[in-house]
């Protein structure tokens, strides 16, 4: 693992609390790692698991989903949907071989800029320990392709030989 690995983290933040919280961290000139790329959504309840998997497919090293604290949702119960999904997503990711450090779901209110910075800091630190996300593309493809190519060439060569002698 390279020493200067900087993880790419996708942050999906709700418009009403967490995005405002992250904004507060910015306007208060708090220092926190620049590894997070933030996407604003209207509610954490619209973050379906597909989006999280898509982030990993595209090469994210981690995904952070953040919404309003339960009870504070702008849409009354949007974040209840989030909290139901979270344990299922965590289990699914662990099962398909994605380390638990790479997915985090938190609650950050509009006044918790400092908390947001700390969460990102912690997540970057955790992901640095486990290293970059390895896309699940299997074998080193070039070597396999070469082996297959060699074996087909052998087959073709023996086939041709037989043919020409017969002819």
């Amino acid at each position: 693992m390279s020493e200067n690995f900087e993880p790419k983290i996708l942050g999906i933040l709700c418009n009403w609390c967490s995005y405002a919280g992250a904004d507060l961290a910015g306007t208060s000139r708090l220092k926190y790692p620049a590894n997070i790329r933030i996407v604003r959504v209207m509610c954490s309840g619209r973050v379906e698991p597909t989006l999280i998997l898509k982030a990993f497919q595209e090469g994210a090293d981690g995904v952070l989903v953040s919404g309003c604290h339960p009870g504070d949702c702008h849409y009354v119960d949007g974040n209840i949907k989030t909290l139901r999904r979270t344990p299922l997503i965590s289990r699914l990711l662990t099962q398909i071989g994605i380390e638990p450090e790479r997915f985090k779901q938190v609650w950050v209110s509009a006044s918790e800029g400092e908390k947001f910075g700390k969460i990102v800091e912690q997540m970057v630190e955790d992901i640095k320990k486990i290293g970059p996300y390895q896309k699940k593309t299997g074998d080193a493809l070039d070597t396999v392709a070469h082996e297959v190519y060699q074996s087909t060439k052998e087959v073709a060569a023996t086939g041709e030989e037989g043919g020409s002698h017969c002819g």
Partner: protein
Amino acid sequence: MANKLKLAIYWAAACGGCDVAILDTDEKILNIAEAADIVLWPIAMDFKYEDLYKMEPGSIDVCLYNGAVRTSEQEELARALRDRSNVMVAFGACASWGGIPGLANLVTREEIFNTVYKETVTTINEDDIRPATNYQGSHGELHLPKIYDRVWSLDQVVDVDYYVPGCPPTPETIWTAVEAIVTGNLPPKGSVIGGTKSLCDTCEREKTEKKITQFKRPFEIIADPKKCLLEQGLVCCGPVTRDGCGHRCTNNNMPCRGCYGPSEKVNDQGARLLNAIASIMDVKDEKSAAELAATWEDPAGTAYRFGLPKSLIFDYKKGGK
């Protein structure tokens, strides 16, 4: 004779059920035999790969390829058949999305080898012999196919024209596909031969407000044959699965296993099923959500039973060649 359709049927990482399903078309198999000349069908007839290699590109009209791609032999045959076939059909769930063999992607190849060649109590393998691609026998060196790190669906390896879903495809689905091919009345490239709606859409079970208070497995309860299975705590893949199977499972009081693959507007069957299930979990706080989620025995295995290699996490084109 010259106008007869040239048909190749090949099996890769599969159980053979798809081949049996073709025979399962009963007396219609005779119509298939009448319309088509079979040029390759390893399970039923004796053909050599050499004969296939001698064929010209485009000399096979239709290839029904069943099974996922797990070894270099299966990949080589997929490429050889693709080169020689005008229409390549991913036949059955394994070829289309990886199927049951695709669940091997949950673990690594080394873990599988460890289990099979070392850890099972009935295995005695003191020299720790593992599958190799070369073997020095008394009559010379043998070359064996390489087992890949992960399982691939057919369309991640070669270009696929049509998908025939199912584990195995029902005779009706097979017949629809064969009829389309024989009459030349083909749907647009990339079509899945099956329904367009989700299974839930056409399911006749009584649906009220869905709520899951505890996940149950099919052997634990005798389900009410009239009520929605999800409401009874069974994880049914109906909400995200394509219909067209004739509701064989749900009609027999078993939850849908998802073998017809994702329905039209679903791109990741497992993630969408997870989403659907989460939306009906009857919990309101984090602690009880975690407790309830823990009663679902195997989320990845259930949600991706037939489609793990095609899930977003694994969906890459296999390079090479």
